[in-house]
């Protein structure tokens, strides 16, 4: 029921680094670390779905590349302007990785 793609974020990466250190010191096993990551997947999916309220829009100068594979979209956008109400952030180049939002919860365990 939880996507694993959020492991590739600041929060996910720092968790994995922390787990790696504990494994190195022999304080936890690889198996336990994997279980912690599965719990992370569950928590982050749940929290994003229920606790985040910010909405924003964006406009890209150019869609440079797109790819659709295994139900995952990947876009490379250039000259992107992200906007939340009055606040704007401009980015030369951004990569978007998006899993299918409809699958969550429906399938029980679609892990990608």
């Amino acid at each position, binding site marked *: 029921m939880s*996507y694993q*793609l*959020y492991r590739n*974020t*600041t*929060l996910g990466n*720092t968790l994995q*680094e*922390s787990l790696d*250190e*504990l494994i190195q010191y022999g*304080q*936890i*096993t690889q198996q*336990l670390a994997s*279980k*912690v990551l599965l*719990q*992370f997947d*569950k*928590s*982050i999916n749940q*929290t*994003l*779905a229920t*606790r*985040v*309220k*910010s*909405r*924003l*829009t*964006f*406009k*890209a*100068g*150019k*869609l440079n590349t*797109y790819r659709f594979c295994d139900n995952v*979209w990947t*876009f490379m*956008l250039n000259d*992107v302007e*992200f*906007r*939340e*109400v009055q*606040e*704007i*952030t401009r*980015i*030369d180049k*951004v*990569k*978007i*990785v*998006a*899993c*299918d*939002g409809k699958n969550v919860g429906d399938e029980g365990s679609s892990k990608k």
Partner: protein
Amino acid sequence: MSNSLCKTSVLRIYQEVIDDVVSGVRDLFVEEGIDEQVLQELKQTWESKLLASKAVQVEEEKPKKQGNVIPSNGFPKPVQHIQPAQQIPPVVPAQVQSVVETRMVPIQITLPPQPGNDGGRVLTIQVPATALQGNQLQKVLTGPVITATMGLPPSIASSLLQQHVNAAFSSQQQAVAVINRNVAQTDGTHDDEQIEIEFILPNKCSSSKSKLRHQRKVPKLKQVDGSMDTSDDDEDGSDDDNEDDDLDDDKDEDDQEIEDEGGEEEPLNSEDDVSDDDPTDLFDTDNIVVCQYDKIIRNRNKWKFYLKDGIMNLNGLDYVFQKANGDAEW
């Protein structure tokens, strides 16, 4: 979007996830017979790595965590990016004993006088007491390292040596590195037990210009990784300009030139610091949005994106969104 909701809610959201994960795995730890302390350690490490990443806006009410991040003498930024790998929570049960036994002692290093600088200079750094047994310190503070620091101002040189020593001993003994860093920040307060070590170096810098140039190259590497690897290759490229200039001058003003080089050094080094400091160099390369899509619509070359539940890292800063709608042309 620094004041917008998608930015300001990041820390709160992350903290919720951390707490949720920790309480969610507590039973798993118990089942495997692992001490609660390890779980707390995981939480602390995770939080401090998160803050060290600079992706999260830190609010003032969290000062307790900042002690982990920055020794402040001279090199604020480059150090940080090395530190996360070494950040070990202070309490590592398996190693407690060595922590207790390892006292830090200050040592003084007297550098020989050098053209462009007046007289010998004395640097003070902190090393684990155990390092004074046998020849450990001499192995770490080898000739090239000392040579590398000779052209630098004392404050920078000592922090450079400190980093080098930290890196060297942390690879031998992780627990020491932790103590080591903490002490580095309170430099100079424990001078009850000073030990002097003199490094005798060939003191004829003025006789060989090639040696002088070599000295100028080396320090820049040290500042970045703090340890003693020997990849001088990268440096050659950036130094080429100066060497060319030097060659032109070489013909008639040899003596003059040595002093000039002494004068050039500081601007050269400080310039390097600036470029190393620049966080965009390290973070700008990957702006990533990780999310889910409700709908992706294409009409000829016009695309519309309906995204949700996203985490973005833009210019090194994290944002979260519930919904993000956008469009682009291909």
